[in-house]
């Protein structure tokens, strides 16, 4: 913090600002351009668009293919999110409250799917689904998505449990609440920001997931898969419109996460 003044007056700091500005431009400009292009009124993409309109949004929101894939993706995410929260939170509690000597080992197992490349995970899941004859169905997508979302809940909730003052739960228990009610009335409300973060992560990850679902589907199409196949065929403004729609949803959720301070610290629970 205090190094700010000390760097402030120096040339290298100005250079740093220049580089960072360029990097941020590199990160954000493509997305901004994409959003602008999605509002073109023409039948082709160009920048800046000669005229503006919401023609392509109308097309997307009336096209059966797009709507089907959007609703499939939303349905999957809507089922995955609460399940992932419940299972991930249970696991985080087990790690926090269980024997300390097992904690590190178990935690590694709980977040293992995160370090496995999704291509390998997808391949394995596809084999499993074929074996059980559940490919191209919810029965395959839901467990698959849970496997990649649960680690995020475990991490987010786990971080918050670590700073949670357990005497609060004990106070509740001494007042007549059993373990479950103590957690329900005291712990969960207090770690709510972490639960929200875990939920948002789960939703976005499931909604955006491509490669694993790509393996598991044959006829059904989630939104990312529909976008991919459209893209392989032709780049039309409708793809920019769809992209902007997903971008809007995720940007909104991300902003919520950051404003609640949950990305940097899962610990500022008690204000």
């Amino acid at each position, binding site marked *: 913090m205090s190094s700010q003044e000390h760097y402030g007056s120096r040339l290298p700091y100005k250079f740093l600002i220049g580089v960072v500005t360029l990097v941020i431009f590199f990160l954000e400009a493509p997305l901004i351009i994409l959003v602008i292009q999605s509002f073109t009124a023409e039948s082709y993409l160009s920048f800046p668009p000669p005229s503006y309109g919401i023609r392509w949004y109308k097309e997307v929101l009336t096209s059966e293919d797009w709507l089907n894939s959007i609703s499939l993706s939303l349905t999957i995410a809507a089922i995955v999110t609460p399940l992932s929260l419940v299972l991930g939170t249970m696991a985080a509690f087990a790690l926090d409250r269980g024997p300390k000597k097992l904690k590190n080992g178990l935690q590694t197992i709980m977040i293992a799917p995160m370090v496995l490349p999704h291509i390998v995970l997808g391949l394995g899941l596809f084999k499993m689904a074929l074996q059980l004859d559940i490919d191209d169905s919810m029965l395959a997508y839901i467990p698959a998505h849970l496997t990649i979302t649960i680690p995020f809940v475990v991490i987010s909730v786990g971080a918050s449990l670590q700073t949670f003052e357990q005497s609060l739960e004990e106070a509740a228990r001494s007042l*007549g609440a059993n373990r479950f009610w103590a957690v329900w009335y005291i712990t969960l409300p207090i770690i709510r920001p972490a639960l929200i973060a875990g939920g948002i992560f789960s939703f976005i990850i499931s909604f955006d997931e491509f490669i694993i679902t790509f393996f598991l589907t044959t006829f059904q199409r989630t939104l990312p898969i529909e976008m991919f196949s459209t893209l392989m065929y032709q780049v039309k403004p409708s793809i920019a419109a769809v992209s902007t729609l997903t971008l809007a949803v995720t940007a909104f959720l991300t902003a919520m996460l950051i404003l609640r301070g949950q990305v940097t610290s899962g610990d500022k629970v*008690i204000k």
Partner: protein
Amino acid sequence: MSSVELKSIVKKYGEVTAVASIDLSVESGEFVTLLGPSGCGKTTTLRMVAGFIRPTSGTLSIGDVDMTGVPPHQRTVGLVFQNYALFPHMTVRKNVEFGLKMQKVLTSERGPRVQEALELVQLEALGERMPAELSGGQQQRVALARALVIRPDVLLLDEPFGALDKQLRDHMRVELRELQQKLKISTLFVTHDQDEALSMSDRIVVMSEGKVSQVGKPTEIYEKPQTRFVADFIGRSNILVGKVESKGKTINAEGLILPNKGNVVAGAEGISVMIRPECVEITQSGSKATSTSADVKGKVTASIYLGSIVQYSVQINKGPNLVVTQNNTGSENLKNLTVGDDVDVSFPDSAIYILPG
């Protein structure tokens, strides 16, 4: 009837023995304090009474019912934590109401009982505040009200004033004691602060290394310590090793010859002699013409001004170095004492206590 009774309670964590066989009882309406240095097992004992820790062996009963394996929520104990442990997401009123809700008290009954509890701790005006909006003392009172509202068989407090400043701590001490006597609630109080223990308790249980060192009224604990540990731990004291000489008439304590008032048998060796610093009298040599019974002479080697008292180190001629305290009465005599002064030291009967055993 005793409210809480512990019989040969032991708690081990693997190799570590946190509590090594404790017997303890809190009678109905009694205020008992567990006093001891850090790590002696006070918190462990209290948490076993609350039910958070299961004893390795021994039995524990609350209200004459065996509670050894009963989980915390099925015991009616009121617990107050050092950090208060107020629920940060609930108002003061909701905090206090929580226990009633958990015990399925009717909604219509809860309101008046919460009100009553808040009045008890004089917080009826702050019911709608959040805990974060309260001062430390107020938070402490909410914690007390929350513990009391469920009308517990016993109130358990673990260093409840540890986080308060000195003034507030002294104030809360009086308040808690008054409340306890008004409600006649059996109380088990944990502290490592002897002033707190001495001023509040009906009985004090001094603990050391997981064992009970002595149980007694505050006066007994202070004036008649039964072990070297208690004598050392409570108050400032000089403890000297002595042997009986002159056919049982005197005791030679490290060179200091004292009359054998306690009538210790002749020839006894290695006895512990406790000299309370505040009972010893010192005067500047030759200042008092009437000083006929000046038993011994010494020299002041250090002097510490502590406000209400002044503490001196006095090197007795051919004897030990003693800590002596004098009330700061403002007398010139006292003020004139400085390091290097020769003093006459006298020991009234009350100053000398021979530890048993």
